[in-house]
C-alpha cells in the first residue's frame, strides 16, 4: 500500500507532531530537574552548539588584543568574590551546591586551555545561555574583561600561594567579605594605595564626598564597572559613607603630589588650551580653596589615562550623541597625543 504525499497530508502530519510536542510539554512529564543531569547525547549536542557559537562569534565581535596582563589584582579580587564559588580557584574548591547545577561550572584550571583569548573574552563578555554563566555586569568595559581573560589564562598554572597573593583578603571566602573594609582592601590595599597596581586608583587622601558619590554611582549603574558595582551594590548608604571616610582619612594622594618636567603637559594642566576651548585641569582639580572635585594629584597615570579615554568614547560617534557631562566633554577636547603626558604629569610619574 502506498500513501500519496499531498500538501494537506503533510500539513496535517506536521500540525499533529507539533500538537503532540505541546501536549508533552503541557503535561509536565518532561523532567527539568538539575539533579538528573543530561543524557550523554544531549550533553554532547548542547556543548557542540555552544562551542560552535562561541568560535564563530568570537571571530567577529571581539577585540584583536583580548588579553591584558597588567592588572591581575583587580581581576583576581573579582574572580574570588564572584566566580570562585562556581568555578573554584587554585587551592579553593567550588561550593558543592554550585556543582549540583546542570551543567556544573567547569574547572577552569583544565577547561581554560580549550579556548583562545578571544573566545574567553566573548564568553566573559556575553555569558552562555542555559548554562548559568552570566554576562559581564557592566557595559563598555572591555578593559575589565581583558584583565579577567589574562587571569583565567593563568589559572591552569597558578599555585594556591600565587592566588592568595593576587586576590588578597578576598581569597578567603566567596564574597563573604563583600561590603566590608576587608573586601575593598583586597584590591585597594588596607592603606588605600591600591597595592601598587597601575589600574587601581589610590583612595587614600581622596575627597570623602567624591568617594561616597562614586560608590553610589557604581551601585546604581551610573558609573559602569562589573568589579565595583558588585562591591558597591551590597552597601547601604551609611556603609558607603563610612568606607569613603575611612579611606579618605588615610595619607595618600594630595595636592602638590603631581608634576614633572613635561612643559606641554604642564601647560594643559595649569592653563588649558583656550584655542581648543580646553580649560585648565587646575580650574577644578586643585585643593587650593574649597573645590568640589576629586584630587588627582599623585593618582595613578594608567588609571587617569584610562578614565580620560573612556570618557572620550568611540571616534566614530559624533560628539552630539555622546555624554554631555562635565568630564566627558572636557576629555574630548584634550588632544589625543596629550592624554598620556597629562596623566603622567598629574600622577607625578
Amino acid at each position, binding site marked *: 500500500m502506498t500513501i500519496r504525499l499531498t500538501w494537506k497530508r503533510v500539513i496535517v502530519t506536521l500540525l499533529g507532531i507539533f500538537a503532540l510536542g505541546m501536549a508533552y510539554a503541557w503535561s509536565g512529564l518532561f523532567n527539568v530537574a538539575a539533579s538528573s543531569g543530561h543524557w550523554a547525547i544531549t550533553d554532547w549536542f548542547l556543548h557542540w552548539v555552544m562551542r560552535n557559537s562561541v568560535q564563530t562569534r568570537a571571530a567577529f565581535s571581539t577585540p584583536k588584543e583580548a588579553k591584558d596582563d597588567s592588572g591581575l589584582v583587580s581581576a583576581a579580587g573579582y574572580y574570588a568574590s564572584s566566580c570562585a564559588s562556581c568555578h573554584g580557584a587554585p587551592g579553593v574548591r567550588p561550593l558543592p551546591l554550585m556543582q549540583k547545577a546542570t551543567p556544573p561550572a567547569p574547572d577552569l584550571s583544565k577547561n581554560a586551555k580549550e579556548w583562545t583569548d578571544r573566545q574567553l573574552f566573548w564568553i566573559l563578555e556575553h555569558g552562555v545561555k542555559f548554562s548559568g554563566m552570566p554576562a559581564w555586569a557592566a557595559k563598555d568595559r572591555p578593559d575589565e574583561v581583558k584583565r579577567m581573560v589574562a587571569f583565567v589564562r593563568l589559572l591552569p598554572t597558578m599555585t594556591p600561594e600565587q592566588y592568595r597573593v593576587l586576590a588578597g583578603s578576598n581569597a578567603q571566602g566567596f564574597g563573604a567579605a563583600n561590603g566590608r573594609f576587608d573586601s575593598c582592601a583586597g584590591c585597594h590595599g588596607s592603606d588605600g594605595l591600591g597595592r601598587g597596581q597601575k589600574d587601581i586608583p589610590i583612595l587614600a587622601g581622596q575627597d570623602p564626598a567624591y568617594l561616597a558619590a562614586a560608590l553610589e554611582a557604581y551601585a546604581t549603574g551610573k558609573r559602569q564597572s562589573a568589579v565595583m558595582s558588585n562591591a558597591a551594590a551590597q552597601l547601604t548608604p551609611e556603609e558607603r559613607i563610612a568606607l569613603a571616610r575611612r579611606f579618605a582619612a588615610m595619607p595618600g594622594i594630595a595636592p602638590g603630589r603631581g608634576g614633572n618636567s613635561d612643559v606641554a603637559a604642564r601647560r594643559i594642566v595649569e592653563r*588649558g588650551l583656550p584655542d581648543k576651548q580646553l*580649560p*585648565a585641569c587646575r*580650574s577644578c582639580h586643585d585643593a587650593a580653596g574649597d573645590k*568640589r572635585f576629586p584630587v588627582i594629584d599623585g593618582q595613578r597615570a594608567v588609571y587617569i589615562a584610562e578614565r580620560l579615554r573612556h570618557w572620550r568614547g568611540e571616534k566614530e560617534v559624533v*560628539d*552630539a550623541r555622546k555624554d*554631555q557631562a562635565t568630564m566627558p566633554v572636557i576629555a574630548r577636547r584634550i588632544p589625543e597625543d596629550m592624554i598620556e603626558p597629562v596623566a603622567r604629569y598629574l600622577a607625578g610619574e
Partner: protein
Amino acid sequence: MRGVKASCGVAALFVLGGCNRHQSALTVFGEEAATVRHLTIVMLVGAIVIAAGVAALMITAVRAPEGRLTLSSGMRLIGWVGGVVPVVVLLGLLLYSLPAMRPLPVAQGDLRIAVEGEQFWWRVQYQPPGAAPVVTANEIRVPVGRTVQFDLTAGDVIHSFWIPGLAGKMDMIPGRTNRLIVRASRPGTFRGVCTEFCGLSHALMAFDVVAMEPAAFDAWLANERRPAAPAAATAAGARAFAANGCAGCHAIAGTDAAGQIGPDLTHVGSRTSLGAGNQPMSRAALVRFIEDAPAVKPGARMPAYPQMSRQDAQAIAAYLESMK
C-alpha cells in the same frame, strides 16, 4: 482652484507668525535698514505695475480677433517691450539703488564694536576712541544718532551677523574681519540673529540689541567698565562659582575668574536674555542653564554638571543675577 486659494491663505497665516516689532526688516531703527526698506517698497510697487502690464498685454493678445495680429507687429512689440523697456527700467533701477550700496562714512573718533561669532554665542568688545576696550557678550547696545562700526569675525566656523531692523546681514568668517557701519535712529529693544548655519544650536544663536540715547549709553558703558558689585547676600554663590571651577572658562572682572573660553559674565545680571537670546534672564533659567546647558542649547560648548548640588546651582544663579 478653490483648494489652491485656501492653502495659499493658510500658508500666508504662517508667514504672519514672523511679524513682530523686535526682529523685523520692516520695523527699522537704523539708516541702512531704512534705505533697504525704501528700496524694497519701490521695487515691489514697480514689480506689481510691470506684472499688471504684462498680464494686460497677454489678455489683449489672447482676446484679439483672428487676423488682427501680424508677425511684424508682434516682433516690433517684443523689440520694444521685451528689449528696450527692460534695459531702461533696469538701468534706472541700478542708478537709483547704487547710492544705497555706499557704506556710511565713518570717522576715527567713532565707536567700534568687535563681535566674534562662536558656537553658539557672541563675544563682544566695545572699543570707544581713546579708552580701554570693554568686554561683554551676547548683547549689543548702540547709541542713537552716532555712527558705529562693527568689526565682525568668527572663532570657529562661519556665522552671519544680522540685526534686521538696523542693517543688512554680514558674514563672520574665521581669519577675516568684515566691517559693518550702522547708525541707529531711534531707541528701543530689538533682536539680532545668526543667519549662517553654524551647528546644532544655530537657530538658538541670537542676541538682544538695545538702542539707547547717547547719554544713557555713555552711562551704561561707564558702568560696564567697572566690576559689578554683587549683593553681599550672594557671597555663598561667589564661593560656589570658584569651587565648581566656573573660572576655568568664564571671566568676572574684579575677581580671580579670568577664563577666556566662554562668555564674560561680569555684568551678566544686567543682560536682557540668557544663553545668547535663548531665554529671558531669570533665576530659574540661570539654574537650568548652569545645571545642564546642553539640554537647553544642544551642542553648547558648556558641559552639563550632573554632579553639582542644587544648592550650589541656586547660589551661583543668585550671584550671577545680582551682577548688574
